[in-house]
C-alpha cells in the first residue's frame, strides 16, 4: 500500500498511531502528581519531537545512506527559519508559503555548500561543512544584520508590511501564525480525572509533516537511488568502474537532507515566529549527528527515536532542580539526603548533558546500531524464549 512493502507500511502505521496519540502517551502521570514533571505531553515539547524528528530523518538520508558526515546541517535549519520569518513579515501569516520558501531556500543553499564540500570526502568533507556552517552563523550573527537582525534575532514587529494580511490585529497586537485561519498556538485541553491532555494545532501540523517526511524517507530507502547511495558508502571505486558518477548522487542526497533541515527550520518558525543565529551554531549541527547515531544511523525509525530521546532529556531532565530533588529524597536522614542530592544534582538540571553523554557512550559502545539495535536485540531475546518454550512444550508430545 502507498507503494510500500508490508513491513514498511506497518512501520509507517505505527509511527502514524504514535503521532496521533502522543498527547496521551506522553502524558502518563496525573497533572498534580509528583511524577507530572516527567510528562512530555505539552505542545511546545511535542512540536519539538516532531520537528527534530524531521531534521534527523533528513540528516539520516545523507549520513545513514552515503556515510558522508555533515557537521553543518544546522545552517540549513537556520536558513529555513529566517526564510519563514521573512515570509511572515512580508507576505502572510499563513504557514504554507513560509514552509515552502524555507524548503526551497534551504535546498538552494545546500546545493551551493554541497557542490563545494563534496569535492572532498571523509574528514575533509566534515570539516568543510563545519566551516561553512560556522561561516553562516557568523554572517547571521553580525555581517548580515539587515537580513537577520543580528544577535537579537529576527522577530515580527507591529510595522511589518505583510502584503496578504494586516500589520496589526484590531486589538493592536501582532497577528499569529495560522493555517488558513487555524491558529498554530491554539490548544484544546481534555481533562479526564486527574489528567489534562493537550491537543495543539501546531503539533498536529508538525506531526502530519513528520509522517510525510518519514514516508518519503522510506521511499528513498527502497528506491534504486537509495541503493546507489548505499553503494557510495560501500565502495566508490566499484561504482565508478560500473559506469556511475558518484557526485550527482551524493549531491542529490545532500540537497534532499538540506531541504528536510529547511522544513524543520520553517516549522520551528511557524510554531514560534522568530529566528536567531544560535540555531545555526555548531552545537546544533552536532546535536542532529548525536540524534541520528543514538537512534541508529542508516535505519528508518532510528533518527526519530534519537531525536525524541535527546529532546526529552533536554527538556525534562534539565528541569529537575534542587527543590525537586529535596522533595524526592526528604524521607532520608538529612546527612544522607544531602550526600545523595550532591551526587544526583550533577546529572540533572543544567548537568543533563552529563547524563546524555554517559548514555551516548553506553549506546555507541554496546549498541553501535543505536536504540534500534537495542530494540532488535530485545525482540530476538523474546523470540528465542518463545522458541525455547515451544520446544519444551512439544517435547512431551513426541
Amino acid at each position, binding site marked *: 500500500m502507498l*507503494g*510500500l*512493502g508490508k513491513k514498511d507500511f506497518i512501520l509507517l502505521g505505527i509511527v502514524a498511531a504514535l503521532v496521533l496519540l502522543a498527547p496521551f502517551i506522553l502524558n502518563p502521570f496525573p497533572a498534580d502528581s509528583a511524577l507530572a514533571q516527567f510528562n512530555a505531553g505539552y505542545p511546545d515539547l511535542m512540536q519539538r519531537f516532531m520537528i527534530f524528528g524531521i531534521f534527523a530523518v533528513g540528516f539520516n538520508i545523507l549520513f545513514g545512506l552515503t556515510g558522508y558526515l555533515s557537521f553543518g546541517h544546522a545552517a540549513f535549519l537556520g536558513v529555513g527559519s529566517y526564510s519563514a520569518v521573512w515570509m511572515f513579515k512580508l507576505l502572510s501569516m499563513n504557514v504554507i508559503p513560509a514552509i515552502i520558501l524555507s524548503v526551497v531556500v534551504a535546498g538552494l543553499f545546500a546545493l551551493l555548500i554541497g557542490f563545494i564540500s563534496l569535492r572532498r570526502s571523509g574528514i575533509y568533507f566534515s570539516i568543510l561543512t563545519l566551516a561553512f556552517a560556522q561561516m553562516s552563523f557568523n554572517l547571521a550573527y553580525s555581517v548580515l544584520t539587515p537580513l537577520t537582525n543580528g544577535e537579537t534575532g529576527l522577530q515580527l514587529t507591529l510595522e511589518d508590511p505583510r502584503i496578504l494580511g494586516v500589520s496589526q490585529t484590531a486589538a493592536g497586537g501582532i497577528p499569529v501564525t495560522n493555517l488558513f485561519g487555524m491558529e498554530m498556538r491554539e490548544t484544546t485541553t481534555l481533562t479526564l480525572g486527574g489528567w489534562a491532555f493537550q491537543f495543539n494545532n501546531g503539533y498536529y501540523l508538525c506531526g502530519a509533516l513528520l509522517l510525510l517526511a518519514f514516508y*518519503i524517507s522510506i*521511499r*528513498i530507502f*527502497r*528506491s*534504486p*537511488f*537509495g*541503493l*546507489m547511495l*548505499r*553503494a557510495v*558508502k*560501500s*565502495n566508490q*571505486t*566499484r*561504482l*565508478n*568502474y*560500473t*559506469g*556511475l*558518477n558518484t557526485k*550527482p*548522487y551524493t549531491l*542529490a542526497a545532500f540537497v*534532499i537532507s538540506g531541504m528536510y533541515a529547511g522544513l524543520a527550520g520553517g516549522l520551528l518558525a511557524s510554531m514560534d515566529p522568530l529566528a536567531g543565529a544560535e540555531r545555526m551554531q555548531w552545537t546544533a549541527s552536532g546535536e542532529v549527528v548525536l540524534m541520528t547515531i543514538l537512534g541508529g544511523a542508516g535505519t528508518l525509525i532510528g533518527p526519530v527515536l534519537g531525536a525524541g530521546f535527546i529532546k526529552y532529556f533536554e527538556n525534562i531532565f534539565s528541569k529537575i532542580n534542587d527543590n525537586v530533588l529535596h522533595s524526592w529524597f526528604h524521607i532520608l536522614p538529612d546527612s544522607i539526603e544531602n550526600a545523595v542530592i550532591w551526587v544526583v544534582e550533577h546529572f540533572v538540571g543544567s548537568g543533563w548533558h552529563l547524563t546524555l553523554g554517559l548514555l551516548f557512550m553506553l549506546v555507541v559502545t554496546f549498541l553501535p546500531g543505536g536504540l534500534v539495535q537495542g530494540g532488535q536485540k530485545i525482540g530476538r531475546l523474546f523470540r528465542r524464549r518463545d522458541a525455547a518454550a515451544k520446544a519444551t512444550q512439544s517435547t512431551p508430545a513426541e
Partner: protein
Amino acid sequence: MGILEVKNVGKRFGGLQALSNVNLSIAENTVHALIGPNGAGKSTLLNCLVGKLIPDTGSVMFDGQSVLGRTPYEINQMGISRVFQTPEIFGDLTVMENMMIPCLAKRDGVFKLNALRTLGRDAEIRDKAEQMLIDMNMIEKREMHSASMSRGDKRRLEIGMCLAQEPRLLLLDEPTAGMARADTNNTIDLLKQIKAERDITIAIIEHDMHVVFSLAERITVLAQGTPLVEDVPEKIKGHPKVREAYLGESAAAA
C-alpha cells in the same frame, strides 16, 4: 583494426619511465593476455585504458573513439569493464543488490534521480540480476552479505557484475591472484564459458602461466615498459626473448 588500439603510449612517474612506446592492438572477440615480469608496466597500461591514469604521450582508441581524458565511468559506459586484482564489490550489500547496480547502470546511465521508484517492483532489473546470478551459478547466495563470501565467490560476483553491463571489452587484472588451485581452475572454466557464450573481447593480465596458456589466443609480453613480442601462445612458450625477460640474461645464455 582491433577493437582496442594503443599507439605510442608513454607514461613517466618522476624519474621512472613506466611505459614507453607501447603499441598494442586487440582484435575483437579474442582473448588477449598481457604478461611480463613484475614492474613491466602491465598495471600502468591497464590503468591508462580505464581512465585512472592519463598517458603522457600516444593515443588509446576504443572502437574508433579516444578514451583519453575521459573519466572511468564514461569509459565504462563506452563498453569497457574492469575486474580488479583484489575483488572490488559492494561489501555492505547483499549479492543480489550488488548485481542490481550494474543492471541499473546499464539501463539508466551515469545518474538518474529515481528516488521515488521502488526497487523491489522493478521486474526488469530484478529478472536481469537473477538471470545473471543463475549464469554465475550463485543464485542460492542471493541474500548473502557479499563481504562474508570466499575470495573465489567474490571474484565470481565481480565478473558477473561486469558482464551484467554487457561490455564489449572485459579487462581482468590478475583474476586468479592469491587463489587456491581449485578456485583458479574454476575461474578458468568460468572465463572459457563466458567466452563461448558471448560476443566479448577479453584482455587479461596474469602471472600464472597455466591460466594464460589455458585461455589466451594471443599474448603480448611486456618488459621494462615496452612490448617485447606479441604472438600466439605456442610461439611465446619457447621464445628466447621471453625467457630472457623472465629469467634474466645469464640464465638465458646458460
